[in-house]
């Protein structure tokens, strides 16, 4: 076959446009940084925002179909998740600027890293090749490692970065090993090929696929912080800069879930009987670990970290449902959770003040009286995390458990519902201190929130409520995009 057949066409580039835009912007930022004279404030943030705003329509409008010899496949799900991570990036950038200025650590690299990591996630969610998935995963992860340790003079940051990095690469090794086995068993690393191999007459011994699937699952489960691979999450989310934690709890997680859905609900669907029960157990373990460990936390970032573990558990329930509704539910939930959690972290970022000194729950005492607006927003986010109606969190939960019941996972549903009742307890504790306690000294000196941060907070709040009141906005899309 002549090389010419392999030259990328415009269609290929068009379908790859969001990644291109973001990459170019990233490179541009690096140049700007190099040229920036000392002491002048960087405007990399602006560039990043522009790039993301541009990438958004590119992602939404990109025609669907394969690209680059089937390395990528742009389908509904890819579009959904690409849009999601780009929006996430936007919100994170908004909520970061003030933070970086406060810690006077603002520099272009930060934004470049965010952009690159988003590129990685975009690649992940649209990849149809284990190679692409692997590379995308690595791009997003390595960027995250750096971001987690961004304030390099802060011991918490270093530790977070180190833990995230070591354990991350450790897990990646397992993922790779799994990929190797998958390759050996099916003779291909292309997801479509793999599926074909599984249903073809000369199907490879299932046990092999099983092992490969298991190892791949471990790698992804680590990224989505599912029990028992969740160990790193609380430490990293607590140690990393608050906006970065927000990003980590949402962006890479969403991408990893997308991959999980693609691989397991897509390619490995023929052997669902093997992996579904494992995910069942994993989902339950994750919910329990997340919720029950969170009960005891006194540090809000850590509490939110555990809560994010718990929520990963809920999404896993949707995955375990192994159905179109299930994947749609997972997608919707991730979207709702993205808004909610970024918003929550944004408020926490604001309340924590320079050097994140005030992240103890008691430091939030009486904030409702000092900062009614922000407190109200945090209330909305917490209610969404609890799963109170008219918030995205509620509808997400509802739809997930609906999917689970569709697939006759009655016990998982019941246990999940009870879990969400338990969860109410620790979220309420935050509301309690914010509203029912009298203000402590820590809230006396609270500078007004910056405009960008406010955009992030109110934006996420609007998103959360919209998804709660008019879920159809996204749900219909998710239902159409869902695998099967």
């Amino acid at each position, binding site marked *: 076959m002549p090389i010419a057949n392999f030259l990328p066409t415009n269609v290929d580039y068009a379908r790859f446009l969001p990644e291109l835009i973001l990459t170019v912007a990233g490179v541009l930022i690096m140049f700007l940084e190099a040229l920036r004279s000392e002491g002048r404030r960087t405007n990399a943030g602006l560039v990043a925002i522009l790039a993301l705003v541009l990438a958004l329509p590119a992602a939404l409008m990109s025609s669907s179909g394969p690209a680059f010899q089937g390395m990528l496949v742009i389908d509904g799900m890819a579009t959904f998740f690409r849009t999601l991570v780009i929006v996430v990036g936007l919100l994170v950038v908004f909520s970061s600027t003030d933070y970086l200025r406060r810690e006077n650590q603002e520099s272009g690299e930060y934004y470049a890293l965010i952009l690159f990591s988003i590129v990685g996630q975009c690649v992940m969610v649209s990849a149809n090749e*284990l*190679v692409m998935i*692997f*590379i995308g995963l*690595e791009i997003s992860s*390595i960027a995250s*490692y*750096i971001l987690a*340790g961004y304030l*390099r*003079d802060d*011991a*918490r940051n*270093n*530790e*977070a*970065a*180190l*833990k995230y*990095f*070591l354990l991350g*690469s*450790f897990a990646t*090794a397992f993922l*790779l*090993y799994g*990929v*190797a*086995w998958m*390759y*050996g068993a099916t*003779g*291909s*690393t292309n997801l479509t090929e793999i599926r074909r191999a599984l249903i073809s007459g000369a199907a490879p011994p299932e046990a092999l696929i099983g092992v490969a699937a298991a190892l791949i699952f471990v790698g992804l489960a680590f990224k989505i912080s599912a029990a028992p691979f969740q160990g790193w999450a*609380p*430490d*990293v989310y*607590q*140690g990393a800069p608050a906006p970065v934690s927000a990003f980590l709890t949402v962006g890479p997680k969403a991408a990893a879930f997308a991959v999980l859905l693609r691989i397991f609900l897509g390619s490995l669907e023929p052997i669902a009987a093997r992996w579904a029960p494992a995910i069942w157990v994993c989902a339950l373990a994750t919910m329990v670990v997340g919720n029950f*460990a969170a009960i*005891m*936390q006194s540090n809000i970032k*850590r509490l939110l970290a555990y809560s994010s573990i718990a929520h990963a558990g809920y999404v896993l329930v949707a995955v375990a449902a192994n159905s179109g509704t299930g994947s749609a539910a997972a997608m919707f939930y991730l979207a709702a959770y993205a808004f909610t959690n970024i918003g929550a972290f944004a408020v926490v970022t604001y309340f924590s003040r320079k050097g994140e000194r005030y992240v103890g729950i008691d430091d939030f005492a009486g904030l409702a009286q000092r900062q009614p607006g922000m407190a109200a927003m945090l209330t909305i986010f917490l209610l969404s995390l609890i799963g109170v109606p008219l918030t995205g969190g509620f509808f997400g939960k509802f739809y997930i458990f609906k999917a689970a019941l569709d697939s006759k996972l009655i016990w998982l549903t019941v246990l999940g519902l009870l879990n969400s009742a338990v969860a109410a307890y620790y979220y309420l504790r935050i509301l309690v201190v914010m509203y029912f306690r009298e203000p402590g000294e820590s809230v006396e000196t609270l500078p007004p929130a910056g405009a960008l941060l406010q955009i992030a907070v109110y934006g996420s709040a609007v998103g959360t409520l919209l998804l709660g009141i008019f879920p159809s906005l996204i749900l219909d899309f998710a239902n159409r995009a869902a695998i099967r």
Partner: protein
Amino acid sequence: MPLGPLPAAVPPSWYLTLSAILFALGVLGFLLRRNIITVFMSIELMLNAVNLSFITFSYVLKRNDGHIFSFFVMVVAAAEAAVGLAIILTVFKNRQTLEIDEVSSLKN
């Protein structure tokens, strides 16, 4: 493994077994070593083991996708090494130690 007189050529499964052994050794290193750098090297060992599997499989399948894959693994490993070592440097700058267990201030 079948013992007895050494055959002229060994089956691929031997290569795979070797890679499994190396992978396990890597994990063991991760679990046992206390020096952060050594731990990191254990990871590299694991990656190498994986590469061996890839190469072996692509020999079995008579396709070179495995080679490509392991090539990318190397690239990634290189990148990881750069970043990882940088992180290790910052940690050392802050704590003056490479003892992995002393990097455990974040916990409940």
